[in-house]
């Protein structure tokens, strides 16, 4: 068993307290939720598709120039909690800068995020772990930390209700009381299901739908698996606003699936970036994107490979990073200098947004030092190539069907001298997977 010691980030006030069930407070457990009323935002699934297809309309007349509904609501509710003093510190008072260089790594000095608690032990070699009700989980969060519930509407439109009766196990948007940036929230799908931290197609689709609904390229969602610096073993995504591109979004990509028919998911590989990863781009179906990513993550989970996921570009681009920093740390393979910064490289750090706890690290930060840190996170090229092969296989072989941008049949087949192979009685020709 491999473990490392680190100080867990405090994402909710009640995390510090020892709260048993039947707490007598307004929490999100089965003690307080039935009969409770919380704010509710309903999104239209059809509207999500429209927003997605907006990009495809030839004469796009819809107004892209105003802040959207979900956007305004989330910002309003977050600002309200700021006014009420629910955050441990004012994140906008934290200095931040872009490290000189073409990649544009963003560093932040955040001395308040670091909790003074003593480090606890985290197991790093088991990506799937069963839910433990005795440990802190999101049913113990106070209702005041909830901004609103996030559910699909019946009629395809988006609407907000100040007080609505909660569904049996609602999807909840809660604040992160130790924010990295303005608007830092947690998306907790089906909170009362008490699902452990792991990716599945339905909840991943929900996260994508939130990105599409927010309709803001500067609002991203992120996911950390266990072993890749998830703090709490209760299914959740994180999200926040930053009006700047992440270095990973700028990185060039190489198409893996080459030559396509319209409409399928595109799969690419990241280049010129310290952490190796896959990029999935939406075609005309959000469900297909969700399935493609989820299938990849399910493979990684089952193979016990820790990973992080970034949802960017309004839900149109998803980055998947298998990583091994924690494992290397447990084996004593990471430079002490890097360990001293106490940076836990999770999805935001990997994307290029690095929060530093000590002033001396902030003032001496450079593009090189950021690159060096992130290089320790990445799988080696060899290992990544192996993992990539399995990921791609699982995208197409898994139970959830996915439409990927498919090659057209043409003369190149004859040039290669490959014979067609019939599948399921259809005359499909099989070309070769580029690896």
């Amino acid at each position, binding site marked *: 068993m491999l473990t490392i010691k680190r100080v867990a980030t405090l994402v909710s006030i009640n995390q510090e307290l020892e709260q048993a069930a039947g707490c007598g407070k307004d929490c999100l457990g089965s003690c307080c939720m039935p009969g409770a009323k919380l704010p509710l935002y309903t999104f239209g699934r059809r509207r999500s598709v429209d927003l997605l297809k907006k990009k495809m309309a030839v004469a796009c007349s819809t107004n892209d120039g105003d802040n959207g509904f979900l956007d*305004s609501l989330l910002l309003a509710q977050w600002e309200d909690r700021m006014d009420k003093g629910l955050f441990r510190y004012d994140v906008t008072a934290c200095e931040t800068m872009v490290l000189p260089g073409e990649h544009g790594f963003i560093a932040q000095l955040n001395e308040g995020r670091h909790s003074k608690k003593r480090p606890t032990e985290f197991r790093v070699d088991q990506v799937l772990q069963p839910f433990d009700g005795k440990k802190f989980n999101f049913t113990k969060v106070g209702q005041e930390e909830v901004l609103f519930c996030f559910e699909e509407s019946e009629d395809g439109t988006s609407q907000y209700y100040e007080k609505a009766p909660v569904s049996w196990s609602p999807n909840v948007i809660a604040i992160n009381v130790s924010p990295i940036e303005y608007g830092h929230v947690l998306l907790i799908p089906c909170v009362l299901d008490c699902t452990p931290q792991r990716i599945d197609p339905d909840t991943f689709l929900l996260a994508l739908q939130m990105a599409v609904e927010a309709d803001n390229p500067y609002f991203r969602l992120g996911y950390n698996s266990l072993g890749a610096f998830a703090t709490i073993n209760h299914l959740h995504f994180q999200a926040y606003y930053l009006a700047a591109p992440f270095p990973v979004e700028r990185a060039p990509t190489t198409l893996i699936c080459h030559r396509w028919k319209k409409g399928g998911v595109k799969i690419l590989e990241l280049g010129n970036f310290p952490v190796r990863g896959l990029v999935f781009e939406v075609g005309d179906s959000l469900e297909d994107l969700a399935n493609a990513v989820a299938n990849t993550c399910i493979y990684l989970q089952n193979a016990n490979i820790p990973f992080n996921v970034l949802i960017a*570009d309004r839900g149109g681009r998803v980055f998947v990073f298998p990583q091994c920093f924690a494992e290397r740390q447990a084996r004593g393979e990471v430079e002490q200098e890097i360990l001293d910064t106490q940076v836990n490289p999770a999805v935001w750090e990997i994307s290029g947004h690095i929060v530093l706890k000590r002033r001396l690290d902030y003032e001496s930060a450079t593009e090189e030092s950021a690159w060096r840190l992130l290089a320790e996170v990445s799988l080696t090229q060899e290992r990544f190539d192996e993992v990539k092969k399995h990921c791609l296989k699982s*995208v197409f072989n898994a139970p959830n069907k996915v439409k990927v941008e498919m090659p057209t049949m043409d003369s190149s087949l004859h040039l290669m001298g490959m014979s067609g192979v019939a599948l399921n009685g259809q005359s499909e020709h099989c070309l070769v997977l*580029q690896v």
Partner: protein
Amino acid sequence: MELGEEELTASVKRYYKESLKHSLGQCDFNFVLSDPRLPDNPIVYASEGFCSMSGYEHHEVIGRNCRFLQGPDTDRRTVLEIRDAVREERPCQVHILNYTKHGNPFWNLFYMAPVYSRKDGTVVHFVGVQTPFSAAAAAATAAAAPLASKKLNLMDAEKRKEARSECLQQIQGEAPAGLCVSLEADEEEDNHKCVAKDEDKGRAACAVQTILCNLMENSRIGGGGRGVAETRCKEIAESAVGGVVCSSLMLSLTRIQQSFVLADPKLPDIPIVHASKVFCEITGYSQEEVIGRNCRFLQGPDTDPEAVQKIRESIAGERACTVRILNYRKDKTSFWNHLHLSPVRSATGEVAFYVGVQLAMDIVDSAGDENVGMTPYMKQLGAVGAVKVAVRSLQGSGLRRSFKKNSEE
């Protein structure tokens, strides 16, 4: 938000003389001018060439953001490059797949450059030049080059063998219909990477230079302006100190559909540096009449001095506050203003502005079902949040990249 024709033509008139239309008309290029200080960076001038290239009529193009040229297969990362160049107020050159009005895709070598005001260094317009090029011809050039370019996906026999067996394995699985990929690049359909020939690039560069020269030669001097330039005369940080809001911050602020002002506490008497359109509608003042003045012009004979004092104390203490204050419009009529004030910090962590979001109470009282939709108070807070996100990354130098000076150059 619909833009009036007046605003759009004013954008061009303000900086250039009438002669510009004539001299630009002589150019045979496809280009547009857009104004990032208007909501959503709309096109304010489009050449004849642009219209015939895109298939759109002139009136279909003016007032809209250029993104209507994008379509289903336009590369998302390329769009990000353009967005980032607008954000960083710098030139960019990209190869982008665009679409005509009738949905026909074409490859476009798109070059964009900012035009700066000589007076305060802000970006007054972006010039966008479109040079369609033939992908097939470009591919032919690329194929002729001896480089083992990744795009060409040349694989040796060994790898091919390996890959083939891989594929067979997959077939044994449940694969719906093979997954795979062609070994040969067909640049025409590969919208992921497509590069223009050198002569196309040369043409594009020439176009940009000619247009920029024309803009500078025909720029309006006088009336406080000193014309335009292709390079910035003042550093962004310097302009910011003078109370000038840069274009990328302006673009974010114009997305907010609420009445609000930004005031700069570091300047004498804390003047307004930005007022939203809705603010102007509510109060009856124009933006020019308001920028540079302290907010107190909204106060009048019956304004409660205690409310004013509360505002003053909050600013001194760098705190947020909410007050109900009697304000006066330009036409001297009064209204109850539910004002929410908050300090707004920039990337340095220090207070860069105070944002004041106004809510005219007569609107609030006539609200409908309180449970459905966002309340006016909530919308106020939403405006505050949006301002905070924008200012943090876009005020002054904000979170822009800077490039090291390479000693080897």
